[in-house]
């Protein structure tokens, strides 16, 4: 009975909510007339155009609700007819455009008026604005063919206007609304269909460059909306490439690119000869020519577009890297060619002799073409450009083209390597990244490798790390190359010790990629001697570890290598395999027990023993029938321990293992809670029934509400939860509703005990978000001294793995010894993305505190912010109406996900 009563109350409560909402809507209605009326009054009050303009400006600052838009529009139009001042009319026209964009308002009702006032308007500026308004209306009603036709008609009529602004807008309108199909639908038959392309094409020759640009843009707009452009446009666009105005040329380059993508295989004649070539080749040549345009904006545009022209023939593509050198009319070889020759002749040095670049054979003067209309040398010019924007664009384009053509990749290598010495760091970085992306297609020659490795001394950390990344996936051709790389990396290590991890990782890949090249180097690297035992190297020396990482990774696929190891090497192996398991693979060592048999690369991940182990331990847990306290707890604890260890050993399984372990820990907690509640219930005497039962009523009530709510929200997801606790709970709902609290508790207890684990299907790829703070290293004994009350900047450098959207979620926390905590939100620009799934945070944290007597340590750590509501789809229950207050605001919080680093600081008292 009591439950029944409560239910009533609950229903009534919901009613109250609805009433409140009604009140709210009423309020809206009350504001509606006042808004347009106020505007009307204001405009009538206005004595001068300036006044009216002020009122309109004020009005424009506030949003207008969808329902009241029409009223406002009427009033605006009324004033428009009366108004003599063009500036006020202009403002009204622009307001009309803004208003017609209001969501939920259908602007077709004002279109007639707009077209009407357009016909009587004299001022060019107002005309342009009105056309803009029409454009807004037209884009709002994309389905209405008739309206679109009408608008296109209006636009065509005003195309002959003398003002460029009006023509611009007309073209824009045509581009956005021009009909795509030739066939007219029936409702628009009254109006003649116009060939929009032809009309726009006519304005390619307009006297005003702004109009020419608008015409090209309109054409591009048509293309974007899905209209297939005619091939005839190509010739027109080519003529525009020599336009006097840069914006026209820039747009024309785009248009040519579009056409070349539409008709790549068409044949076009070469002027002044009988030959014909493919259109895409011709377009490529023309765009290449624009790479040496006078305006850098055009050059950037052209260089960028080159990258996406993949259908171009390889012959043309390779020309872009060829700038026929000559000196005094004699053919000269480029430095690249000379370097290659020297390399192949076995001599490794260049430029030693004066005149080794002396020109060779004579050139036929007639055959030299100084301005090639073709692609000749386009990238050579682009990469040497004055503006770094152009150089970056050229590097990007080079990258894209090289990815699609291995032979081109081979050829452009020399040029990319040269870019490693650019004066602007951004360009250097970009070219290193580019090289990494195409590194599957290429093998570095020794002299190229030499140049690449020279950059390792760069003082910029980004550059060095990008280079390490590049070396990870580079193919080296000789053992000398490997040796050179190792030597340079070790040099790098001594110069910049902070690069340690990155260098180790780099050597890991270098080793595993080139086992046969490393093999002959092993004795030298380990400095073993055939007869004498050599001194055992220091195990903690990062350089020695680096060498070992290289060798062990090479040994993985080279079974003969371990025979060359000395005793201590095996010991070191065991140590490193344990301490740096992500760098040192499992090896099949002679006479030793196998650490792990995951050696053969043929084994698929599912047959992989470690993976099997994971599966088995999870299955074991899932097979538990009851949440029986003792045995289960132990089993869970052991499994958790196993999984955690597995995660440490097998980096590729770390995500899965950690995830499962955490999940199991949750289960464990649940069991513990139950256990503790039993304790509360049965272990203590003197607990009055009342003090337990009274809150129980409330809790029961609440619980039932929640279950009810839960059921409604997740109705779609319920099938997934079959046979689980939830499923059964829902089955029992009718019974629970009518039961007394005590019974509810009883039923629930029984159910909980019976319920098994939720079998959590593991997704294929689970990655754990993690962060490592590289800097500050926390090893310094010198405190950071600063005057109290002022700030000191602390450089923080961290790598983030598998963090989604780090710009919004990663925060830095500083904990002061007095318990004060400070949260810092790094700027989005502080995050870099060196590779997929990896981010790098380089930021500055400002510390400040009152004066201390002693230096003390502050803790710095990274936090991952989360917002629970962002994960759950919102729509179902927000539309459903009743919002329960605790769900409305999603739970926000942070999880620390890096080890904290201690920084020694000392705020000194300010000196007086």
């Amino acid at each position, binding site marked *: 009975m009591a439950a029944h009563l409560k239910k009533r109350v609950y229903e009534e409560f919901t009613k109250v909510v609805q009433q409140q909402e009604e009140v709210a809507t009423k309020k809206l209605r009350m504001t509606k007339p006042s808004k347009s009326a106020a505007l009307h009054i204001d405009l009538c009050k206005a004595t001068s155009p300036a006044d009216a303009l002020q009122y309109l400006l004020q009005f424009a600052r506030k949003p207008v609700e969808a329902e009241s838009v029409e009223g406002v529009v009427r009033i605006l139009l009324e004033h428009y007819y009366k108004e003599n001042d063009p500036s006020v009319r202009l403002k009204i026209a622009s307001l009309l455009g803004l208003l017609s964009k209001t969501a939920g308002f259908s602007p077709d009702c004002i279109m007639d008026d707009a077209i009407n006032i357009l016909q009587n308007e004299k001022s060019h500026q107002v005309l342009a604005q009105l056309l803009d308004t029409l454009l807004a209306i037209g884009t709002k009603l994309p389905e209405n063919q008739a309206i679109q036709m009408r608008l296109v008609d209006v636009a065509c009529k005003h195309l002959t206007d*003398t003002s460029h602004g009006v023509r611009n807008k007309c073209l824009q309108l045509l581009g956005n609304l021009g009909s795509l199909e030739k066939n007219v639908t029936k409702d628009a038959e009254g109006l003649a269909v116009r060939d929009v392309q032809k009309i726009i094409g006519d304005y390619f020759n307009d*006297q005003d460059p702004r109009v020419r640009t608008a015409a090209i843009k309109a054409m591009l707009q048509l293309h974007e909306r899905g209209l297939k452009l005619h091939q005839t446009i190509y010739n027109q666009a080519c003529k525009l490439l020599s336009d006097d105005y840069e914006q026209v040329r820039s747009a024309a380059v785009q248009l040519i690119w579009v056409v070349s993508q539409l008709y790549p295989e068409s044949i076009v004649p070469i002027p002044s000869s009988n030959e014909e070539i493919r259109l895409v080749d011709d377009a490529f040549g023309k765009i290449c020519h624009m790479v040496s345009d006078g305006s850098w904006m055009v050059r950037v545009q052209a260089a960028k577009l080159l990258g996406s022209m993949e259908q171009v023939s390889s012959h043309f593509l390779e020309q872009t890297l060829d*700038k026929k050198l*000559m000196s005094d009319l004699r053919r000269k070889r480029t430095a690249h060619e000379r370097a290659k020759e020297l390399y192949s002749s076995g001599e490794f040095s260049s*430029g030693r002799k004066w005149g080794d670049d002396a020109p060779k054979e004579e050139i036929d003067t007639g055959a030299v073409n100084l301005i090639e209309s073709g692609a000749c040398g386009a990238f050579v010019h682009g990469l*040497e450009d004055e503006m770094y924007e152009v150089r970056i664009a050229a590097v990007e384009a080079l990258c894209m083209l090289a990815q699609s053509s291995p032979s081109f990749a081979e050829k452009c290598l020399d040029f990319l390597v040269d870019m490693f010495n650019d004066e602007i760091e951004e360009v250097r970085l970009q070219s290193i990244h580019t090289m990494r992306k195409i590194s599957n297609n290429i093998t570095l020659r020794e002299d190229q490798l030499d140049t690449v490795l020279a950059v390792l001394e760069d003082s910029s950390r980004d550059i060095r790390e990008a280079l390490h990344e590049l070396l990870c996936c580079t193919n080296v051709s000789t053992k000398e190359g490997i040796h050179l790389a190792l030597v340079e990396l070790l040099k790098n290590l001594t110069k910049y010790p902070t690069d340690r991890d990155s260098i180790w990782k780099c050597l890991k890949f270098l080793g595993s990629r080139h086992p046969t090249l490393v093999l002959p180097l092993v004795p030298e690297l380990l400095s073993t001697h055939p007869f004498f035992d050599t001194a055992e190297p220091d195990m903690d020396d990062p350089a020695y570890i680096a060498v070992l990482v290289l060798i062990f990774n090479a040994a993985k696929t080279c079974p003969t290598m371990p025979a060359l190891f000395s005793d201590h090497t095996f010991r070191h192996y065991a140590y490193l395999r344990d301490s740096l398991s992500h760098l040192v693979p499992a090896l099949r060592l002679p006479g030793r027990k196998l650490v792990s048999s995951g050696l053969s690369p043929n084994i698929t991940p599912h047959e992989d023993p470690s993976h099997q182990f994971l599966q088995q331990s999870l299955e074991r847990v899932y097979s538990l029938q009851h949440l029986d306290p003792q045995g289960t707890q132990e089993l869970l604890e052991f499994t958790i321990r196993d999984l955690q260890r597995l995660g440490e050993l097998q980096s590729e399984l770390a995500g899965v293992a950690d995830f499962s372990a955490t999940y199991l820990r949750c289960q464990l907690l649940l069991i513990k809670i139950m256990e503790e509640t039993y304790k509360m219930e049965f272990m203590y005497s003197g607990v009055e029934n009342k003090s337990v039962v009274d809150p129980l009523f409330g809790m029961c009530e609440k619980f039932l509400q929640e279950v009810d709510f839960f059921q409604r929200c997740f109705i779609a997801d319920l099938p997934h939860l079959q046979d689980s606790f939830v499923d059964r709970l829902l089955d029992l709902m009718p019974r629970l509703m009518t039961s007394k609290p005590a019974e509810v508790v009883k039923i629930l207890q029984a159910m909980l005990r019976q319920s098994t684990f939720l079998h959590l299907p593991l997704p294929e790829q689970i990655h754990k978000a993690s962060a490592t703070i590289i800097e500050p290293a926390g090893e310094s004994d010198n405190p950071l001294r600063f005057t109290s009350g002022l700030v000191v900047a602390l450089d923080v450098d961290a790598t983030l793995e598998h963090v989604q959207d780090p710009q919004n979620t990663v925060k830095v926390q500083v904990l002061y010894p007095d318990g004060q905590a400070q949260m810092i939100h790094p700027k989005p620009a502080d995050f870099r993305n060196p590779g997929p799934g990896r981010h790098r945070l380089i930021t500055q944290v400002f510390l400040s505190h009152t004066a201390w007597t002693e230096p003390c340590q502050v803790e710095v750590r990274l936090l991952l912010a989360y917002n629970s509501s962002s994960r759950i789809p919102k729509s179902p229950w927000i539309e459903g109406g009743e919002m329960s207050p605790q769900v409305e605001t999603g739970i926000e919080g942070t999880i620390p996900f890096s080890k904290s680093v201690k920084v020694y600081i000392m705020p000194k008292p300010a000196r007086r």
Partner: protein
Amino acid sequence: MPEIRVTPLGAGQDVGRSCILVSIAGKNVMLDCGMHMGFSDDRRFPDFSYITRSGRLTDFLDCVIISHFHLDHCGALPYFSEMVGYDGPIYMTQPTQAICPILLEDYRKIAVDKKGEANFFTSQMIKDCMKKVVAVHLHQTVQVDDELEIKAYYAGHVLGAAMFQIKVGSESVVYTVSGNLGHRKGCLVEEREEAPPHHHILCQGDYNMTPDRHLGAAWIDKCRPSLLITESTYATTIRDSKRCRERDFLKKVHETVERGGKVLIPVFALGRAQELCILLETFWERMDLKAPIYFSTGLTEKANHYYKLFIPWTNQKIRKTFVQRNMFEFKHIKAFDRAFADSPGPMVVFATPGMLHAGQSLQIFRKWAGNEKNMVIMPGYCVQGTVGHKILSGQRKLEMEGRQVVSPHLSLPALWIPLGWVEALGTTTCADGPHTAMLQLEVKMQVEYMSFSAHADAKGIMQLVGQAEPENVLLVHGEAKKMEFLKQKIEQEFRVNCYMPANGETVTLPTSPSIPVGISLGLLKREMAQGLLPDAKKPRLLHGTLIMKDSNFRLVSSEQALKELGLAEHQLRFTCRVHLHDTRKEQEMAMRVYNHLKSVLKDHCVQHLPDGSVTVESILVQAAAHSEDPGTKVLLVSWTYQDEELGSYLTSLLKKGLPQAS
């Protein structure tokens, strides 16, 4: 007949002593006033008597323009202005204005103090000469007088190098002196007709089309001059990418320094020296190197000071970063002291002069030559007979006189040997000076050659010509043989005339004078309104009256012309009779004519009036019976003079007869 006349007094089919006279629409301009470093007699300066024959220089010349501070472009200036006598304005950019007197003074010192020449200009003369200089900004249009205007464009090449556009009324020339258009150097004179017809000449001194570490690339807008005067030093050369050269250079220096060796780089004081400094400075910064870099004091220090000040004339990188740090404020490069040469440990030294023929660079070379760890890098060409040339050609044992090895005309600090000349100079032989007290020096240090030059190559020149779109091109500052090739290429690829006059030879370019005519807005608008869609491809016919008054041309509507001139309007009507064989009645005939015309002239307004006549616009067609032959009808066609076109068309149409009524 208006014309442009160009006479090179120097640099015509030659390198050095750049001096070009341009007459354009009655204005005379002298472009550059340089010296020739190959001569030490009268021939070193241009022959100004060519001008003075016709009177004083000041009377003849309207202005002098100096493109940049290299002595082959400004070396004769004090002689010209103070000794020959010129009081008119001299135009140059600010960096040129700042650096030019330093170089002139240095040049004077060597000529007078070292070689003891008499009758040379004095320090005071240099100062007086500089007083006549007017500084111009980039892209600033300077009105020299009512008609003559000049405008400077960026040329690269060296700090402050500019190309100049010269405009007189309607004619223009562009001249480019040394510039960084890639690797281009040249002179470009152009003339052009523009919408308000203007002839202008674009004059290019040396320029460079590829940017380098401290200068940007030359740039010019599409000014379509009548004549473009361009340098052509590297007319037959296409350069390799600069990146390889830079990389090699840095690698060599780096390696030597790493193994503890010393690097000597002999340079000329200005231009390339700064380029190499920036290159090394940024490299040191990037690689975090500690070895010291030194720069010989004196001229270079002074010049560096100016480089610091003229940031807007440098390239993108320096311009963008100078707020944080001025790139010319070298962190790693310090002034050199004689004593440093003996200090142990690695170092890099820039020392003048560049060919190792005298001075500090030679002294250091002698100290360091014995050690195989050390290295000398020659960044430019060396003239035969110098130590630089010897070691580059592989000589390992040098005989040296006790104090210095000097060949006569190389005693000038080589800074005014612009690097572009180097090829030209290759053929010059110079006798080794008399050797006394021979000393054997064994060269164990490594010798490297590295070429850095800031002139545009053939491709660069073509690129610039393409950018400016001149009507004529004139080549200067290059060898005749090489020019020939470039001339042929330019004529072939741009289809413009190309000239290459020798010194003293005059090129005359006829220009079609373009006469600006003002048109009244009312007339223009009326004509615009009549037209259909604007079509750029078709010429349009416009009716109006041309009024010539006080050398002023105006096109106005005829009504307005009548009003202005106070004349009464007369109407001129043409009438024409067309005989047609037709037996039908007049009305019927008129009806047929009406129908016919209506079907043919769809664009025009054809009306059938109640009195039986037909009008097409203002043309009247009447049908009447022939007085003698009733079978023949006479069509009277009458039109005013204004409708001549339509009227005659109509007549010819009617003469063909009417179509048979179906």
